[in-house]
């Protein structure tokens, strides 16, 4: 079975688990639309998804809020995604690794178009019509005081740089920029893109990177520094798709081409602002725009997110409930898997000190890998979506379960094992009748720890498209909406507490009565 077909099989399994949209025929072809986790990614993703829904009979699935370019690109190549919006400059510098000076927009588009077709069997469709180039920006007042208008002016000032994690290592990001402009290495921190804006606004950093269509540029009173040495290539956004999408769903290509050249810089900034500034859903903004172009039927008037936290929680109650359900089964599967593997593993190594040292150390090392990094490691193996999330949560759950199984079995009095053997128990009888019942409370405490860790870590699974209560957290961070973040974080915390309490109950029930009554000794 090739990796591709494993992905397909996994996707089919997931599709069976996740309810399909009601209007699509069960045998309709499926199109998976991806989006990077920032406002524009989501808006473009929605535009493509909705026009595909309107113009084809395909079942369209959305995998939004993906962690970055690499996740989307890998997802596309592995077949977990069919299409997402990419930028020509990113394709050139980041994905093709071409650092040579770029030509104009048309030249760059032709260049990536040919290269992606031959090297990856991926197709760039005609761009949407705007150029969202990378840009360095500062607060307008600060730039005015220092007399900075262009990137070339930065070299003479000792300024604090705070750039997004994606910009920090990319050849078309900071390293190339430093080279081109002879900027100093000192005083640069990596920040979450959306946090960088807040840091700029409150003055804790001076310069940050951003995208020229960001709604926040207007909202926060920032100024874009002129790229006086033409370092940044053109970044025209365009649908990037698997070639096989258009053979599976021939109508998909003309549908996506309907968007070509429809969105200029000002339009894109306006759409972004509608989401971030007016607190509306990307889906509603996209629907309104498409209806305005006459490409789809007019949508019912959309509702903006309420500003109060309680009102928001109430408005989102059903969404939250379904996200919590998804969150629970994600963690449930992961913990179940960790029990099925960790318990036998712990039992197998518990009587062999050298083996248990190896098992505990390996599980311990897994635990020290930062959650987001572990999730990222899973991507090449499982693509994006639910599977890598479950795999990562499963690995996290192993340590507490293996550790507590070993500790629980070791805590059983050796005399009792000798008595069991002396009475004629087989190894198996000893395990089921003596070791497991006596070790049960300790083992269950391990399962409980694993479950609580898992519920917490699963909020990060939204970054790789697995959904769950992390979804509003990631979206909220993207659009700088603290209440939206809380609408995911609060239920996630409540869920962790509930899971902890429920498993605490199971633990008490499973503790043998004879061990509970230890204190009552009558004579």
């Amino acid at each position: 079975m090739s990796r591709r077909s494993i992905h397909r099989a996994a996707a089919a399994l997931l599709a069976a688990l996740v309810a399909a949209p009601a209007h699509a025929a069960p045998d309709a072809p499926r199109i998976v639309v991806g989006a990077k986790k920032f406002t524009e990614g989501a808006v473009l993703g929605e535009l493509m998804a909705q026009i595909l829904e309107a113009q084809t009979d395909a079942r369209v699935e959305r995998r939004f809020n993906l962690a970055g370019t690499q996740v989307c690109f890998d997802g596309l190549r592995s077949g977990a995604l069919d299409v997402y919006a990419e930028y020509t400059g990113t394709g050139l510098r980041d994905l093709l690794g071409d650092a040579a000076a770029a030509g104009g927009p048309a030249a760059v588009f032709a260049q990536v178009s040919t290269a992606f077709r031959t090297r990856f069997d991926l197709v760039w469709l005609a761009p949407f019509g705007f150029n969202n180039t990378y840009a360095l920006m500062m607060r307008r007042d600060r730039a005015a005081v220092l007399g900075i208008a262009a990137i070339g002016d930065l070299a003479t000032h000792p300024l604090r740089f705070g750039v997004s994690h994606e910009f920090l290592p990319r050849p078309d990001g900071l390293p190339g920029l430093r080279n081109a402009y002879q900027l100093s290495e000192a005083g640069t921190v990596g920040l979450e893109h959306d946090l960088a804006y807040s840091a700029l606004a409150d003055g804790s950093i001076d310069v940050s990177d951003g995208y020229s269509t960001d709604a926040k540029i207007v909202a926060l009173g920032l100024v874009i520094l002129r790229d006086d040495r033409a370092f940044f290539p053109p970044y025209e956004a365009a649908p990037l798709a698997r070639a096989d999408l258009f053979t599976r769903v021939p109508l998909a290509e003309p549908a996506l081409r309907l968007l070509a050249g429809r969105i200029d810089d000002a339009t894109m900034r306006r759409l972004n602002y509608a989401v971030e500034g007016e607190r509306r859903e990307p889906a509603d903004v996209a629907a309104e725009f498409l209806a305005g172009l006459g490409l789809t039927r007019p949508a019912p008037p959309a509702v903006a997110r309420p500003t109060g936290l309680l009102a928001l929680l109430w408005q989102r109650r059903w969404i939250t409930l379904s996200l919590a359900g998804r969150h629970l089964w994600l963690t449930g599967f992961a913990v179940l898997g960790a029990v099925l593997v960790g318990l036998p593993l712990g039992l197998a190594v518990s009587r062999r000190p050298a083996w248990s040292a190896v098992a505990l150390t390996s599980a311990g090392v897994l635990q020290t890998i930062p959650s987001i990094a572990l999730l990222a490691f899973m991507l090449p193996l499982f693509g994006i979506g639910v599977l890598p999330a479950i795999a990562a949560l499963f690995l996290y759950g192993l340590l507490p379960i293996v550790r507590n199984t070993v500790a629980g079995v070791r805590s059983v009095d050796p005399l009792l094992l000798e008595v069991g053997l002396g009475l004629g128990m087989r190894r198996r009888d000893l395990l089921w009748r003596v070791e497991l019942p006596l070790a049960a409370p300790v083992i269950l405490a391990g399962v409980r720890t694993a479950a609580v860790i898992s519920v917490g870590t699963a909020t990060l699974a939204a970054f790789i498209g697995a959904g769950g209560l992390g979804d509003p957290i990631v979206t909220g961070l993207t659009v700088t909406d603290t209440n939206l973040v809380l609408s995911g974080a609060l239920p996630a915390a409540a869920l962790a507490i509930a899971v902890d309490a429920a498993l605490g109950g199971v633990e008490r029930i499973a503790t043998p009565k004879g061990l509970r009554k230890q204190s009552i000794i009558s004579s």
Partner: protein
Amino acid sequence: MIELESVSKVYPDGHAALREVSFTVPRGTTLALLGSSGCGKTTTLKLINRLLMPTTGCIRVDGHDIAGADPIALRRRMGYVVQEAGLFPHLTALGNVEVVPRLLGWPPERRSARARELFALMRLDFDALAAHFPAQLSGGQRQRVGLMRALAADPPIVLMDEPFGALDPPTRRRLQEEFLSLQRQLDKTVVLVTHDVDEAFRLADRVALLDAGRLVQLDTPEAIRAAPASAFVADFIAQAPAAAR
């Protein structure tokens, strides 16, 4: 009948726990293995139920070399009682008594009939104590439950390792009396490990005195008392209080 022939046990660390020990326990008699700690008496007991294997020598039960026997089947024909009873703390008194019958797959009616019979034999109130967990029982009750557990499937042989060692003197005395009366009724082949001269002489038909892995004298209590084989034996039995005689 249990026979040991030139049995030695050397542990992997080189410690010789038992050197060339031979003795026979005839059917229906009680042999006490007597000696100070580390003399090899517990090792001897564990060799008989194959928790340990001898380094050299041969052990026969009812004429068959146990080296070729299935250890599980062998142990199920031998009751096993240890110091402080070694009861399973997660099982009730009844649960502990029923361990071996359950392993043997007895039907519930047979198990419970046998358990009531044993409680009666030990003069314990079944209705009051069967559902108690070990932690709720007194030391004497626990040791009786341990004995019932060993006798549950009516094995012809019973191995006892310091069974009364952890009890206070009056309780120990009472249980020793009960043991003697039980032994008169049940006629088991018993091997009893003890460091207590009084207990060995009181309970056993014959006493084997061990010192540093060697058998120094094996005889009836009267014969040992009348003619100690060495100054060591004379010194060792002198620790028994006058009341024991």
